[in-house]
């Protein structure tokens, strides 16, 4: 999907009026004002890197979700919905909700009780320095690369939609993010992410509402999609019996095991970009509630992302195509479906709010990457490996400079991607190499006390190496796809799912074998880190509707109902 966005289309989809420009300018002024205001509240390391650990469940939960609503989320998944139909919603439902609930109920107590600053920090406590160094370096590298890709994608969207100069978009947006994160640290990033979350909804929710009015309701929309595309486009599960019967070329085992069990759990429970927001919660109950609140809103995001893509299939007068065909024919590509729907329904003012929603999405993702990079660099690389015994003020100062440096590296990556579009494919693949094995290492570390430091390190290394190996194997010999993805009919999405599954299995198997060959830590050393030897604080005697487990159950019931409803 990222690669598809790499080819610029020299057209301008919408024209902004004065009031639209005023709304966008006001947004930039407000995020900078928030950064300036919070500068005075970021003196210590706990303030700057962990937002003082004083966030309420609502703020941590909305920020947790907003950091994920990044550059490709809004535009990319609306495009995927136009291209693949409602199957794209799997990335919001089975590809997110179970993992978010698992993080809140099962994993959060260990992250929170250990008082770690980061996921690599947890690995240090559980498995030792080598595991932390491996995961910290790979995470820092991938984070700035992904931030650069987000930045480039945003600039490209602004060029295609508004005709804005790419350099102008890159430098204005990156400088804004650098200023407000460097000034206010994680607290400023979180404040702005909550603001951005509200603006995304305010700017994007009108499209599906008006779209459903025009289409004549959901039943009529399904009929129109069946007529214009195929009836398969509105079924979530019933077409996944074989690789050939659905637009995505994927089997239900790939969705359930690869996406639902590995990639989703890996991303939502071990990617520090999102976990950092939850670690900033003011107490354990808030830390457990934050992912549950995030899950509830995550279930609703398809309303503003997937539904506009489906509506595009029904109401747009033109047929959207892939980027290459769009360039060749002068038509519109899948990636333009959201701006096209925006310009279809939104007049002056609403258009500016919609564009602000897109920019807010891009900036929240970028700020999330930069603040996570800053923390991992300062605590898990700089303090752990370079300068161990400096003052707290020294590390805060390093964090501020590192924010600016991280943004500059991201800008450099954005220009690198611009010059070599195919790099996007490789970086996307590189990012996926680390998620699945890291999940294997963390989950074994938390749930199996016999796992040893050597087991954790070699499992993580073997899982990562096997993922890279499988990816290279298919690149060199495309016929290998039948072994990696279990079918020659599998497509890119399916390959990613199965590669994640195999690399997780390799990580877990190697960790178990090496752990049995090496000496385990005693229970006392594992207290606060591993299930079974950690006393989880009992929740206060509160009514049932204040308990995280109750709300997790409510979200789980709605999750199951949605899957049955759109079966």
């Amino acid at each position, binding site marked *: 999907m990222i690669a598809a966005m790499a080819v610029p289309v020299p057209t301008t989809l919408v024209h902004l009026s004065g009031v639209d420009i005023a709304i966008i300018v006001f947004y930039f002024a407000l995020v900078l004002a928030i950064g300036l205001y919070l500068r005075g509240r970021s003196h210590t390391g706990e303030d700057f890197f962990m937002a003082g650990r004083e966030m309420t469940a609502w703020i941590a939960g909305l920020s947790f979700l907003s950091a994920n609503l990044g550059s490709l989320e809004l535009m990319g998944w609306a495009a995927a919905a136009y291209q693949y139909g409602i199957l794209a919603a799997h990335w919001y439902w089975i590809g997110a909700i179970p993992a978010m609930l698992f993080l809140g109920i099962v994993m959060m107590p260990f992250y929170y009780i250990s008082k770690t600053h980061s996921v690599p920090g947890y690995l240090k406590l559980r498995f030792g320095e080598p595991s932390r160094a491996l995961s910290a370096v790979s995470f820092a590298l991938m984070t700035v690369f992904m931030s650069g890709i987000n930045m480039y994608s945003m600039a490209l969207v602004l060029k295609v939609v508004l005709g804005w100069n790419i350099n102008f978009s890159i430098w204005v947006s990156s400088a804004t993010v650098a200023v407000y994160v460097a000034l206010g640290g994680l607290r400023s990033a979180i404040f702005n992410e909550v*603001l951005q979350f509200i603006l995304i909804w305010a700017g994007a929710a009108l499209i599906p509402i008006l779209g459903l009015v025009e289409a004549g309701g959901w039943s009529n929309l399904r009929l129109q999609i069946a007529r214009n595309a195929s009836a398969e486009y509105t079924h979530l599960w019933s077409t996944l019996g074989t690789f050939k019967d659905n637009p995505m070329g994927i089997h239900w085992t790939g969705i359930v095991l690869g996406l639902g069990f590995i990639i989703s759990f890996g991303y939502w429970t071990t990617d520090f970009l999102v976990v950092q927001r939850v670690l900033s919660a003011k107490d354990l109950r808030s830390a457990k509630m934050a992912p549950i609140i995030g899950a509830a809103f995550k279930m609703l995001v398809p309303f503003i992302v997937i539904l506009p893509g489906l509506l595009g299939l029904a109401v747009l007068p033109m047929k959207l195509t892939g980027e290459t065909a769009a360039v060749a024919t002068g038509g519109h590509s899948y990636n333009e479906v959201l701006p096209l729907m925006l310009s279809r329904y939104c007049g002056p003012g609403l258009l500016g709010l919609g564009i602000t929603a897109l920019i807010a999405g891009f900036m929240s993702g970028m700020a999330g990457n930069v603040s996570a990079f800053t923390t991992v660099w300062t605590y898990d690389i700089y303090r752990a490996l370079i300068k161990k015994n400096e003052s707290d003020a020294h590390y805060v100062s390093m964090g501020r400079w590192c924010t600016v440096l991280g943004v500059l590296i991201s800008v450099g990556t954005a220009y690198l991607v611009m010059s070599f579009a195919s790099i996007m494919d490789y970086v996307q693949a590189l990012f996926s190499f680390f998620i699945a094995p890291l999940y294997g290492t963390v989950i074994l570390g938390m749930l199996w006390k016999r796992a040893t430091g050597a087991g954790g390190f070699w499992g993580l290394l073997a899982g990562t190496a096997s993922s890279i190996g499988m990816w290279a194997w298919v690149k060199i010999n495309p016929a290998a796809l039948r072994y990696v993805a279990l079918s020659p009919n599998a497509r890119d999405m399916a390959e990613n799912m199965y590669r994640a599954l195999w690399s997780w299995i390799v990580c877990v198997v190697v960790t178990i074998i090496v752990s049995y060959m090496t000496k385990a830590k005693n229970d006392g050393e594992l207290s606060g880190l591993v299930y079974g030897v950690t006393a989880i604080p009992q929740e206060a005697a509160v009514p049932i509707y204040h308990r995280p487990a109750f709300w997790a159950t409510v979200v789980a019931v709605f999750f199951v109902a949605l899957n049955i409803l759109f079966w």
Partner: protein
Amino acid sequence: MREGGISIWFFIGVSLLVNGVLIVGAGIREVFVPPANPVVLFNLHANIWWGALLLVFGLVYCVKFLPGRKT
């Protein structure tokens, strides 16, 4: 999140209020000066009622989370 400081919800209220005023204003102007190329479903005047909704929410949040006010 607000002890001794401004709540995030106040900032959000300000944002919704200002956007609401600008959008409602643009919508009212379109009633008197209809655009040459109206958007689809222009007759619903979405910018007026959607902008009004943002304005009301913004106003409520601004008042409720006004700095210095006890909630």
